């Protein structure tokens, strides 16, 4: 069977809405109520359609004199890399598993990891197999997911105060989440360091009390304890009884600093995982490799939709001789981000959980991958198993679609 050739690619901004306003993190002002999914649809002359999101590319904007981060630039790179190519022209396969990126597109995929997800989806759909198979085959039947929407919500609800985070955590638990990540690090920017520590501790303990024993709690400091290891020592000590599963980005990645974190853990008897790496744009960067090799981290987190499947395969190869878990982050990638995490997690032995921003449904059809009691079932369709709701797409989103066709750039 001759593989189809990509004839048309479209780019469409699709709004994705959180369940409510998300507040500040340690370094950023309010996350807000929504983001855009930059939906990329590539269609072949054989009738196959593959999907990805180009959110990582659209975040690369510098100014109007450069094409990065613009729709114009996005169409150009998609045209250059994908248009006119066959669906089997991107990925090397061995025994039904993708083992490498083909050299012609290797550079483009390294820089734009999200492109590899499109290549996997196209190939899987063309062959009628799931991306899970292409990634190496199913390792588990359900994929644990954690709620990642617990920011500094008390700033939004001053009348409730710190109890607001516990209140939101309880709602999340009722919605089925058994793992919840709480943002901490208030002293980095929005509060005085000592005040921020006290609030962080108060919030973590309140969430544990609200959830009882039937939930895992993780924390993400967004490097909020940089320069304040003494306060961090207090935080670790005072939250021991909350039995935190992992502690993320407590400080800026650095071997000396992470050795100090390990010493704090030894002193306090804290066995939470130390995880970091979500902002590693060229994984595995030397600093993270050093941290992994020295046993100073327990989880590594490059963004699933930014790094893409092929890079994550390479990451797992690089972590082979370590005990570091795969914990892809997914920030502001819309509904697509969770699906990408589920698919990758299904095939990964060292995967530990999908970051779930709990976006409301938008452009995709409801399918067999359902969240319930803390985890997602697996999609059963070919590729990513993700289908566009075409009626809704035409009615709501199509007017903003920009299209390039092989040999004939067309703009509606």
């Amino acid at each position, binding site marked *: 069977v001759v593989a189809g050739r990509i004839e048309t690619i479209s780019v469409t*901004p*699709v*709004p994705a809405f959180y369940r409510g*306003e998300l507040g500040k993190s340690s370094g950023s*002002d*309010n996350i*807000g*109520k*929504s*983001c*855009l999914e930059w939906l990329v649809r590539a269609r072949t002359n054989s009738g196959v359609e593959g999907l990805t999101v180009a959110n990582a590319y659209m975040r690369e*904007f510098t*100014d*109007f*004199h450069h094409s990065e*981060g*613009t*729709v*114009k630039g996005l*169409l150009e790179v998609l045209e250059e890399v994908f248009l006119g190519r066959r669906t089997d022209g991107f990925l090397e396969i061995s025994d039904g598993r993708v083992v490498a990126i083909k050299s012609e597109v290797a550079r483009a995929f390294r820089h734009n990891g999200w492109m590899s997800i499109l290549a996997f989806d196209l190939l899987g759909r063309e062959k009628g197999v799931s991306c899970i198979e292409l990634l190496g085959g199913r390792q588990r039947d359900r994929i644990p997911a954690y709620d990642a929407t617990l920011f500094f919500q*008390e*700033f*939004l609800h*001053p*009348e409730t*105060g710190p109890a607001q985070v516990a209140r939101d955590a309880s709602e999340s638990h009722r919605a089925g989440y058994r793992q919840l990540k709480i943002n901490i690090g208030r002293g*980095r*920017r*929005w*509060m*005085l*360091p000592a*005040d921020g520590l006290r609030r962080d501790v108060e919030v973590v303990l309140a969430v544990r009390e609200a959830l009882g024993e039937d939930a895992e709690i993780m924390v993400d400091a967004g490097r909020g304890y940089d320069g304040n290891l003494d306060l961090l020592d207090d935080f670790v000590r005072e939250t021991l009884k909350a039995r935190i599963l992992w502690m993320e980005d407590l400080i800026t990645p650095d071997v000396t600093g992470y050795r100090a974190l390990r010493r704090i853990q030894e002193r306090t008897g804290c066995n939470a995982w130390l995880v970091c790496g979500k902002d590693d744009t060229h994984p595995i960067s030397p600093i993270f490799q050093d941290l992994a090799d020295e046993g100073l981290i327990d989880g590594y987190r490059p963004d699933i939709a930014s790094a893409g499947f092929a890079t994550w395969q390479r990451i797992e190869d690089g972590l082979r001789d370590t005990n570091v878990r795969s914990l892809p982050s997914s920030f502001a990638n819309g509904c697509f981000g969770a699906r990408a995490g589920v698919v990758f997690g299904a095939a990964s032995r060292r995967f530990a959980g999908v970051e779930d921003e709990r976006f409301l449904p938008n452009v995709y059809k409801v399918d067999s991958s359902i969240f319930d009691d803390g985890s997602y079932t697996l999609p059963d369709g070919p590729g990513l198993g993700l289908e566009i709701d075409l009626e809704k797409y035409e*009615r*709501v*989103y199509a*007017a*903003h679609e*920009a299209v390039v066709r092989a040999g004939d750039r067309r*703009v*509606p």
Partner: protein
Amino acid sequence: MKASHRIVEIRIANIETDFGKLVGRNSRSRNYGYNQREWLAQFKTNSGLTGVTNARPSMNRGTLAQLHGVLGQLLGRDVFEFYRVKDGRVTGVNPRWEHLLQRNGFVSFALFDLMGRALDLPLHALLGPKVRDTADAYDSTLYFEDLVHPEEGADAVAREAWEAVEKGWRAVKIKIGRPGRWFEPQMGLERDIEIVQRTRERCGSELRILVDANNGYDGKMDLLETFVREVASADVFWMEEMITQDLSGYRRLRDWRDRYSPTTMLVDGEGSDGRPTIYWSLMEEGLLDAIQPDMLHMGFWPFHNLALDIAESGYRTKIAPHNFNAAAIGLRGVIQFAAVTPSFVIAEDSTLKFDIYHDPDYRFENGAYVVPDSPGLGVEIDQDLYARLYGSVETVLKT
């Protein structure tokens, strides 16, 4: 003996509110958002006065600890120590404080507020004689709403413009510049034009329509000419930041404006204090009809002097202060500034209401705010509500 008004306490809190709608993105940045906030700083004196400002310019770039570092320097100081004041008028700035006030213009809001209250004068009287009783204002919350409500397309903006009219605004500013980033350039141009035209159709001929591209036509001068030509029939009041300030680009833009839409103003300068040479070159050549430094960032005294310098230069450039960042307090400052500034054009209004601010003298009537003559800035804090909502989260600096 002159009474003492020493600053003995500064209370700071993140005050939250919302637009009541999701405000979308502009040509370069992500959604502005649903919620908005001010960092209310209340300066209290030993004489029982309270002056207020919004410290958000500092918090946008720094930390609460850094803000404490700045404001802590003011503790124990008399409110008349920072400026030279003669016969109820500010005549200069104390060099001891010039650098701090230049870098933290928002501090001047609280200091002028306190001086006005101490002298029982409205804030505007500290700057000069009153030249107007009202200040026109425009609703500046019309962003790329078509990307928030894609099913409505251009009508999403036109609808929100109409809602602004129904609430009393007689001028609205529409964000454009879609060719720059978020749209394929030709599609973006067509949408920009469609939105301006739909807004005019829906809201009628009386509404003043302002547009702001946030430089989204940079490198796309062919599209910019088309835009200027195609919206000529909509009688746009001003075009703001169509391109990055540049003499050759502005000469071309001015030519198109003169040819297609001669009454439209060209305005720019929100990211500056108006002092860089490029702005004076633009003014010298008659390429800049109004300049827009940010009121909260710049502060009263430098802004007042910029207006005086422009007037004395003989250039015809007017003043239209930028004021966003949830600046309810900033807007009150702009209105005070407008009261004494003959070349003032119109105030940027983010339309936000904060429950804890009480300022009934700033009546909004027929698209304009009445300039109050109450002492200081004329904004009171509902201290009971403040204590209930923010008492547990505020930070306090004390002598």
